[in-house]
Structures are given as C-alpha cells and as structure tokens.
C-alpha cells in the first residue's frame, strides 16, 4: 500500500497515546471542514422532512421537530420517480461496464506498446477532458442525431462513457505501468496468449484501479444532468437529475420538500456503492503516486 493511502488510514485508527496539541488542532480543523462539507447533506435531509409551508417560515427551522415523511411517501409511490431511478441505474451500470472494458484495452495498449504517435494519442485523450462539457453539447447532439441515437439509453451510456474515459484510461495506464513486464514474459513462456495474460495475470492485479474506474464512472453517470437533459426528451427515458428538475422545480414555484426527498432517496445507492468500495477508490486513485 502506498504512503498516501497509509496516511489516510492512519486517521481512522485509535491512538493509544494522548494526542499532542498540534494533532488536536488538526482534528479541530478537520472537524470544521467536515462540518462545512456535511452541512448541505444535513440541510437536504432536514428540508425533506418539512412540509413546504414549514420551509417557508422565517426564521428557518434548523431541526425537524415534527418530521414529516409525506414527501418520501409521495416519491416512493410515484411511478415517474421509479422510472427515473430505473433509468439511472441502467445508464450508470451500462456506462461503468463499457468504460471498464474500453479503458482496460486502451490503458494496456498505451502502457505496453510504444508506437509512432502514442504520446500524442495520450495527450489527445487528456485534451478531451479539458473542454468544458457544455461547449461540446451541440457537437455531441449533432453526432448522436446523425447516428439516430437520440432519446435512447444507449446515448446516455455512450455520453457518460465519453466523459469518464480520458481519466479512466490514464488511470489504467498508470496501473499497468506499475506491473512488472517479467510477469507477462513468464506467462508467455508458459504458453499463455496475450489475451489470456491480460485477463488472467494483469487484470486481477489491477483490481483496485478497475474498482476506482467503476466508482468514478458510476458517480459521473449517476450525477449527470447535462447529457440527460439534452440527449433525451422522452419523460420515460429521463434519468434522475433532469427528472427531478423537471418535476419539482417549476417556473413560478418549487416543491423543495419533494425535490430534497427525491435527492436524498437518489443518493442511497451511491452511498451503498461508495461504502463498500471506497477502499479501492483510495488505493486506485493514489496508485503510482509514489515510486517504489
């Protein structure tokens, strides 16, 4: 495990000795940051537990004294919300699988084969990430329109994959660079084909990187608003972010209680995914950060 990951984990381990003043200061500082970061989440939950009429009272109610779960009941009974949910799971899962598949091959190729222009190709990959997504929307829209892909789940899978591929490929390339070539040569001597070597030797060793890509892509696809809003117009194919905006945030008024309840409910799968896989995320993202 690399040094950065070890340092991160150190914070979670109980300390036997009394913390020094500087450590205490660090904890207070980190606690303040945590409070700052967690407040929006807290506020979303508190808002979702109030009625809209309660929310509009001044001064605001900071704690849900009489929590009201009607917004949650409403969204769980709403077929439209469940459709948004189902579509988002489909798109996020599809994008994750596709992105892992493509970035394993591309990352491996960039790591192992030095061909003419390979460095330029790497740079081009990175440059794709440098354009603000909003500037790419018309180009993407035209292209998908030409392929007759608009208004399908495929288009959202492709778009989210496009958005996460540059980083994912670079991550996989870094991972593969860290795996000794001798292992491949040994497999070759034993008669393994290149594909067999890749999937039986290299990929298992790259599990943290693959998991990091999976989480990263899943998060990107799950939170996507712009592609979901632009490339799909049929309400039955909408994903959560544009769907919530469409349903709860109107021209003259907003149903904040409903919107926050839906947002809180929409976050649950992400929390579950992240809770189980965060170790891989840290390992994967910090891979290659320290030379062994």
């Amino acid at each position, binding site marked *: 495990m690399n040094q950065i990951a070890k340092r991160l984990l150190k914070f979670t381990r109980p300390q036997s000795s009394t913390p020094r003043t500087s450590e205490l200061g660090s904890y207070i500082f980190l606690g303040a940051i945590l409070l700052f970061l967690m407040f929006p989440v807290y506020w979303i939950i508190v808002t979702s537990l109030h009625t809209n009429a309660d929310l509009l009272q001044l001064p605001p109610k900071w704690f849900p004294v009489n929590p009201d779960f009607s917004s949650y009941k409403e969204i769980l009974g709403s077929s439209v919300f469940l459709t948004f949910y189902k579509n988002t799971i489909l798109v996020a899962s599809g994008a994750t699988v596709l992105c892992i598949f*493509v*970035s394993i091959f591309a990352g491996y190729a960039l790591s192992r084969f030095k061909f003419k222009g390979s460095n330029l190709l790497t740079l081009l990959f990175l440059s794709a990430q440098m354009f603000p997504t909003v500037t*790419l929307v018309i180009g993407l829209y035209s292209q998908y329109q030409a392929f007759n892909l608009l208004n399908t789940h495929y288009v959202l899978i492709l778009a989210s994959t496009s958005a996460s591929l540059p980083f994912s490929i670079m991550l996989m390339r870094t991972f593969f660079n860290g795996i000794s070539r001798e292992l491949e040569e040994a497999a070759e001597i034993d008669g393994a084909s290149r594909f067999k070597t890749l999937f039986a030797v290299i990929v298992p060793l790259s599990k943290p990187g693959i998991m990091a890509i999976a989480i990263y892509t899943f998060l990107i696809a799950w939170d996507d608003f712009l592609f979901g*809003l632009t490339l799909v117009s049929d309400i039955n194919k909408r994903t959560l972010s544009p769907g919530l905006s469409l349903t709860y945030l*109107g*021209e*003259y*008024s907003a149903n904040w209680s409903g919107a926050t309840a839906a947002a809180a409910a929409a976050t649950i799968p992400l929390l579950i995914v992240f809770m189980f896989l965060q170790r891989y995320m840290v390992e994967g993202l910090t891979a290659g950060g320290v030379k062994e």
Partner: protein
Amino acid sequence: MKKWNKMAMGVTALSLMTALAACGSNSSPASNTASNTNSTKESAAPQSTTDKPVEISFANWISVEDGTKEAYNQLIAEFEKANPSIKVKSIGIPFAQFKDQVLVSSAGGNPPDVTMSNQNFTPAFVGANVAAPAQDLLNAEIINDIVDASKAGVTFDGKVMAMPWAPHPSALFWNKNLYTKAGLDPEKPPTTWDEMIQNAKKIAALGKDENGTPIYGIGETGASDSYTGNMLLRISYSFGGKFVDDQGNIVYDQGTALKESLLYMKDLIDNKVSPQGAAMADLRPMFATGALGMLVDGDFGRTNFRNMSGKGAEFDKEWGVTTVPVSKTGKSETFFTEHQLIVTAGSEKQEAAAKFVEYLVSKEAMGIYHKLNGVMSARKSISELPEMNEDDYSRIFNTQMKTASPLPSKNPKFDNAMKNSTDMIVMVTEGGKSPDEAIATVMPKIKELYKK
C-alpha cells in the same frame, strides 16, 4: 508483436474516437436545419393525404409541472380528439434550462415542431432563426385578434413571429388580516401610490408577529437578478419612465422617473417597510405566510399562494387583489410577462404545427386552461368573454392587462441590462450612494452593453 501493435493502435484509436465524440463538426446541423427549412412546404402538403397520424413534437414546461399538468393533458386530449390525424408528442424541459435546450436541439438539426416561449426567450429564438413567422402560418383572423400590447411584444422587423398565448400582468395583492391588524379597512385596497405607501408603513409598524417573525408593509425585490430589474422598471413606469424609445435607444435615465423610483426603494428599505435584498422567490412565501402586507405579482399568484400557505383555497379568504395603484401618469402602470407559442422554422410539419397552435389559443382551449389555472387569453375576443371574467380575480387581471406594458425585451441584451440595473438599487439602499450617483455609474454600462 507487429500484429499486437496494430491491434493496440486500433483499440486506442477507437477509444479516442469515443472520448472525442464531442469534437465532431457542427457544420452539419446548420445545413440540416437549412434543408429542413427548405423542405418544409413540400413536406407539409402530403401529410394530410396519409392515413398514418402525423406526430408533432411540442417543447414545453407545462406538461410536467404539478400546477399545469392537468390542464396540459386535457388540452392535448381535446386537440387529438378533434384532430385524429395529428398526435402531439410532449418534450418536457425544465423552465430554467428551456431556452438553451431548444437552441441546442435546433442547432443540432432536431428542432421541436412547436415550442413554448416567453417574452425573454422569443428574441433569442428569432435571432437564432428558430422561429418561423407566425403571421405566415396562422389564420389572419387570429393574428388580427391579438391584444395590441402583446402583438407589439412579438413583432420583429414588422413581422409577428410568435403567437401570444397567456399574458401575465402584475397586479397588487394585499393581505386582509394584516390590514385589519394595522387598523386599515381590509376591504379597501389602495388606489393611489401615496395611499399604498401610507398603508405599507402602517403595516410595517406592527413590527413582529406572535412568533417573532418580522412583518413588512410591501415587498419590493432588491436581489441582484434580472427580475428585480424588471420590477424596478415597473416602478419607473408608475413615475412616467420608459426603458427604450420607439427607435430602441435607451432613455431609462432621461427625466426623473428612474431617480424617483430609486428614492421610493430607498425610503421603503431604509425604514424597513420592505425587506432588504429580497428576491421574488423570497417575497412570495413571505406573503403566503402572512409576513408581507402587499406584493405586486402575476395572475399565477393565487395558485402559488395556495400551495405555499399550506391552506389551499381556504387561503383565498385572507387576501385580495387589485390593480396597481395610480401614480404620476394618472393610470395603473405595470408590465406583463407572457407565455407564447412558436412554430419552428426547422419543422417539417408546419401545417399540423400551426393547426395545433391555433387550437391552443382558441376559445375552447383557453376555456379549459382558464378554468383549471386561471390564465387569461392574449386574444381580444376571448379575453372579453364572460367565462374568462367569471370572478373578481379574473376581472382584475383582465382590467390590469388593458394598461399593462410589455417588457421591452426585443433586444437580446435586455435580460443582462435588467440584471445590471439592479446595481442601482444596491448602491442606493446599501452603498450609501445617491440616486444620481447610482444612475451615473450604472447607466453608461447598460448603454455600452446595448452597443456591443
């Protein structure tokens, strides 16, 4: 090894193509749009001869909003019943992203056949050649029936480009309970500007309610958004002001109207008669929860207040609505916003699309929409019908519409100009500047903006 190199190059190139998919040229959409436009007339003709229903797409934000969903469903059902050869496919887009999304789909060669619009979106749609001239597609009788002020708002270079659908003039709502508490007659709203200020000050003198919530006499917006700019312009109308002259030149700072408007704002905010820095989204709930004595808002106010108060239609007993009090000009001055309908230039089904628009502004459709949502018609003959004036609420807004002015939003920079103009309120109410200093600082920037 060479084979592997080739394969590697192929796979990476494929990945790169996916990653760079966005970098495709967007010259084709333009040509697509152009070809769509050229083929419109040809393709519109044969559609009535086929047995298969023609499907038209309708970009809108009313089909998904809770308040208007029911009206939308009824309107579409009635239209499809009367026109079995046409099916309407809804494209629901959130209001906040509506303009950008319609522009993107149009530039991408896939415009909706009909799109909703409003006074701020239409200039952009006309400027981007998204809109087909309504006067060339709709029945002349309908075009001639448009309320004059509405027609002026959708006429570009002498052509009516959009069909006004539902105008929303702003009128004065007052809280009867707060009037009673302040010793005012709850059934007697102010009729003059001075009376309105006096009443507002008496209500603000109540201080706080039993829960400690501050009570304000009137809500005037002071936030840094373009709607606040619109409201400042509305106030200046009452003092005889104008934003642009007939040639489109900015004359906002000519005369004393803007200065008097800023002094009015300063007086209210300095004396805590109106809350400081409030956006319309803050003021509406304040009115709905009894913290605000008066508020100038549109005809959609009733639905909003019912929802926000948590009391539903029962809340109607606690407030009244009247025309904006008369000021310097001797008439009730206000502005109106408006929902409009546009048949797109890129539509290949303009004939069916025009038929749909004609239905939506018809007496039958407006009857449904008015009954369910209280909206008014932008057609003279319909707005005067008894069924569109069946209660005081409708009568007040129909009366208000007669003296309401359209927002001078034909210049696409208008929205930015309105946003910039809010700096004057901030300077006067929070920055300690005089109205003259604020006008001298901000107006040159607005004029410069219009020159670009």
